[in-house]
């Protein structure tokens, strides 16, 4: 096991897959010579050369359109959209072309591609560079959606996404790029569609994603130490496919569910999980399902404001305590 940062794990996964398969190519803005604006892709140009690691103009429709056309014709492109907010200028390619064309063609073609993007808040970038959009992607049939919380998951899930025959939107939470963690050495490929129980507990299930995972873990620690409440923490990791059975198994045991989402309130992924539990596991519940989210607002820029609106460990604790009353 090596200690890698979340950002180093990105390059490690891409390099691993580019070594394995020469049809894996990588394109995006500032990803090659500059090594990425978040320094996630350093060294790839040097190892794999300019035919496989290519800088593009600031032209997101061209980037994703080219990735789509290449994926239909034998390549396995990885495209970077620098900030996930920028999906708004190329969402047509994602939603109308990449997500639908396999279905409309009656299965004649596939889109084995990955779109990586820096997602979410916490970096004081303001509302146009901080949004959490994983729930946009989750709403579109034909897209797989992954959002890791740790360096090991970045490496294993990005490798799995690159190997996957379907289009995967891979959301890296930009405030996590600096965190470090143990990452398996050598070739390491995880599995999409598997949630992970990060902390076992008996009183309440806290389901979180990406940057909300370390916050949920911290909240669980506080609940145990200060309130004698045993919280089970699940990292969803993949919204599509969704590992419903791991969540259900936990809720059946704890009988209480709290979801922790960074996205604004309406139609967040926690609403879908809440709905599934309410429909299929209602009689196992001993209290209402609670969703902790950012309010239904764009993210503000100033640190004190951003910190106030994103779900904090304390807000998670407070919501669990309300449920326990």
């Amino acid at each position: 096991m090596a200690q890698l940062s979340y950002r180093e794990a990105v390059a490690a996964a891409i390099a691993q897959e580019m070594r394995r398969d020469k049809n894996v190519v990588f394109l995006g803005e500032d990803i090659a010579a500059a090594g990425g604006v978040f320094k996630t892709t350093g060294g790839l140009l040097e190892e794999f050369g300019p035919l496989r690691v290519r800088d593009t103009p600031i032209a997101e429709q061209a980037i994703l359109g080219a990735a789509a056309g290449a994926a239909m014709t034998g390549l396995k492109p990885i495209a970077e959209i620098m900030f996930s907010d920028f999906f708004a200028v190329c969402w047509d390619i994602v939603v109308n072309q990449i997500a639908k064309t396999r279905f409309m063609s009656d299965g004649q073609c596939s889109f084995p591609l990955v779109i990586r993007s820096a997602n979410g808040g916490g970096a004081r970038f303001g509302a146009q560079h901080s949004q959490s959009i994983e729930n946009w992607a989750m709403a579109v049939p034909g897209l797989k959606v992954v959002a890791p919380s740790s360096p090991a998951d970045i490496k294993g899930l990005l490798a799995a996404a690159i190997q996957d025959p379907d289009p995967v939107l891979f959301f890296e939470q930009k405030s996590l790029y600096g965190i470090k963690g143990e990452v398996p050495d050598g070739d390491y490929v995880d599995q999409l569609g598997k949630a992970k129980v990060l902390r076992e507990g008996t009183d309440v299930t806290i389901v979180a994603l990406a940057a909300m995972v370390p916050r949920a873990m911290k909240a669980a620690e506080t609940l145990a130490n200060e309130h004698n409440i045993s919280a089970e923490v699940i990292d969803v990791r993949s919204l599509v496919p969704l590992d419903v059975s791991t969540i259900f198994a936990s809720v059946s045991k704890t009988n209480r569910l709290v979801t922790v989402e960074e996205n604004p309130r309406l139609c967040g992924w926690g609403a879908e999980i809440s709905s599934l539990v309410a429909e299929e596991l209602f009689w196992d519940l001993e209290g209402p399902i609670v969703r902790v989210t950012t309010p239904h607002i764009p993210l503000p820029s100033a640190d004190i404001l951003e910190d106030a609106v994103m779900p904090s460990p304390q807000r998670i604790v407070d919501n669990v305590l309300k449920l326990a009353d």
Partner: protein
Amino acid sequence: MNDSIGPLNAAVQNATVPDKDTRLELYRSMQACRMMEQRAYDLFMQNLVKGTSHLALGQEAIAAAFGAAMRADDYTFCTYRGHNHTLVRGVSMTAILGELMGREIGLLSGKGGSMHLMDIEKGAMGSYAIIGAHMPMAAGAAWSAQYRESGQVAVCFFGDGTTNIGAFHEALNFAAIWNLPVVYVCENNLYMEYTPIGDVTAVENPAADRASAYGLERVIVDGNDADLMYAIATAALDKARSGGGPSLIEVQTYRHGGHSRADPGKYRPDEEVAAWKARDPIPNYRQRLLDDGIDAATLDAIEKEQSDRVDAADAAAQASGPPPLEIADTDVWADGGSSWRN
């Protein structure tokens, strides 16, 4: 690049008449397109085709010429006005008409419809119904061909209305900087949908006048002249295949009908319609072939053969039943299914 003597304009200026077999193939292909589209129109009138459809009656020379000039493994990307571009790649007419009618025998088993015809095995990489989106996709297929050193070329057809959307400009710049083997063909039929393209465009020639912005040769060709279209298609394909990079070709043409099924095209002056119908690519080509010594019986036989072909394709499509309901849940994912949870 000097506009007047660029390689594509030189190819048009120096175009020689294609050999007889090629010309007969162009005539056959144009007749197939014309008769199939007319049948599609008739099927609408009988309410056998639901939804909408965008016919390319009057624009057959473009599809026929590229169909004849392209290599079997080249890629075609086209728009919702794409029945002809799909047919000329050798796609089954029965499957096309079946798809228009939503039958099981349809090219996409009824899951795509008129605007999304696609046959990957034939290089028909899809008909796209969001303006401009397929232009960067064609660049991507060309990138793939370049990377794999396969010698394939991507050809991307689009209408004049596409020249004002962002994806057009992004794709052309992208294709130019990567020197991609892609041929962009703007079928300028003078109307975007209902509005004349000239009313909403800053330049007179919507594609050609933008070419210089991407370092490309300015090319305008008569899209109703099959021989000329064959010459420019061959030149642009050769250029792309030999590493010469992308081309942008504006072809001038006219659709005989409205934009879509819902549009009778009444906004077009009668004199304009009459003038363009006099430039109909098919009867004019027939006359040219006769003038060049091809006998009428040969051309009559081609017409009969294509007319019979359309009848047979229509009958076979109509004999097919509706698709089974289960297929609505298939092929969202590469594993063939649509599951999103365990």
